[in-house]
């Protein structure tokens, strides 16, 4: 990988919760405009790694983070940075969709307004565009002002995606975005992520190996808080080097 197409790089990243190490000496490079899957058994630190990229860990109590996380040639862990500016570059899709307690329209308009101006016409265009991008427009165009909580879970997840891209981030962080969804809604999200990687760097935490095989360009395999293997998906899946990765692929550990 050349320097220019690396979106996120970590150097000696360590995270502890209440003095328990969760991530140990993480050194990874995540390629830009590709879909990177973070895989590994439950409780191995996948979500923690994902949330370290937009400095979401520090709102928890008693977290210690050391090391560097380099985004756009800058270490985002440097003190004194404007954290909302860092987070603005990274949309987050969580496991359970959390629409904001507002109408469908306002959910998407919220990010547009706080970052890209309050001009009503532009906000309306932006909302339309983002909802269309995630294939939600036709389903909700007649009830834009209904509470977002009335949508189905699958629709809520797509709304969260629309809300995230409205901010115009560089990266979309996805934390098991399909695990709460029915198969059809899950497939819609997968397809969307594949479409979105043209414009965004997509990082997907998943505990289903099959999903990673279907969609990933690049793979990071975590095991007990350490990166055991990373590389292009084809290499890692067809030619695993570590015994842990081999065991994980064969289904001995999951």
């Amino acid at each position: 990988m050349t320097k220019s197409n690396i979106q996120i790089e970590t150097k000696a990243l360590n995270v502890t919760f209440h003095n328990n190490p969760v991530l140990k000496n993480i050194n990874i490079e995540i390629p830009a405009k590709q879909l990177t899957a973070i895989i590994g058994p439950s409780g191995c630190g996948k979500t923690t790694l994902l949330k370290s990229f937009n400095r979401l860990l520090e709102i928890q109590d008693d977290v210690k983070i050391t090391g560097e996380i380099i985004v756009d040639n800058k270490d985002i862990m440097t003190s004194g940075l404007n954290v909302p500016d860092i987070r603005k570059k990274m949309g987050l899709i969580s496991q359970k969709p959390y629409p904001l307690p507002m109408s469908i329209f306002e959910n998407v308009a919220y990010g547009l307004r706080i970052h890209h101006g309050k001009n009503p016409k532009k906000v309306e265009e932006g909302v339309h565009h983002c909802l269309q991008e995630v294939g939600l427009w036709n389903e909700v165009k007649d009830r834009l002002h209904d509470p977002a909580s009335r949508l189905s879970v699958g629709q809520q997840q797509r709304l969260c995606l629309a809300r995230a891209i409205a901010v115009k981030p560089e990266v979309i962080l996805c934390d098991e975005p399909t695990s709460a969804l029915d198969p059809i809604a899950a497939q819609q999200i997968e397809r969307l992520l594949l479409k979105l990687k043209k414009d965004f760097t997509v990082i997907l935490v998943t505990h289903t190996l099959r999903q990673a095989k279907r969609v990933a360009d690049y793979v990071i395999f975590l095991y007990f808080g350490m990166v055991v293997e990373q590389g292009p998906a084809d290499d890692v899946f067809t030619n695993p080097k570590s015994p842990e990765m081999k065991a994980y692929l064969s289904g001995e550990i999951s």
Partner: protein
Amino acid sequence: MLASLIIVIGSLILIVSVIVFNGASSLSFEMLTQTSEGSFYLSSGGGFLNAIVGSLILALPATAFAFIVSVFIAMYLQKDFISSAFSSFIRMCLDIMWGIPSIVYGVFALTIMIAVGLRGGSVLFGIIALTLLEIPIITRSIDESIKVVPDGLKESAYSLGSTRFETALHVVRRQAMPGIVAGVLLGFGRGIGDAASILLTVGDSNYFPTSVLDQTAALPTIILNLAGMPEKTVQNKAYAVAFILLLIVLTISILTRYLTKKSSRYIIK
């Protein structure tokens, strides 16, 4: 279990029916539209509009002040702003404040009043006593409703690049709104019905107060005065006042339910 249920519901029905039976019968239109005459506690002259107005003049500003203070305390109590050790200390202080008998707030306000050289009572110090009484109630209600806002929702807002204040103002506020409404009305209900905190500080008056340093009548204090009189007719006036107070509190209760439901429309479960 059935026995305790009967005790609870039975006493509620008993209290309400005694007040309605005695109060409604001695209540007259003049009582609600006229201010007290000189001998209100002795004969049947005049009404108690001055006390209704007085109670509102005490409880409304007190609730407003308590709300402003409470919102900021409740917001800062969250882990987004201060450490959890410090916030649990403040929560403990508020719980102690909640448990302090209201007469103590009354004595406290009286002490300040005497220290600044006022005698006999004033609206201002009644408001001070009620504000102190309401702050822990409103703060803890708002605090509890903010505490149960899901972390995932706050994370969503932060991930969109919102600052802590934008998150608090636009997202947490909306989600916590039903609890905020309930807390404010709970505080107001407590404030308007409390006698002990204003007993020593507002004095009494037959007229509407015209400045914050005037004395004023209030519903709970005139109930106390009327009920202590020997004549049956005067005592019945106490029931009439209690009936009005009950109606006010009932209205607040219904309003709380309505507004809580209304503000729940958008919240995320």
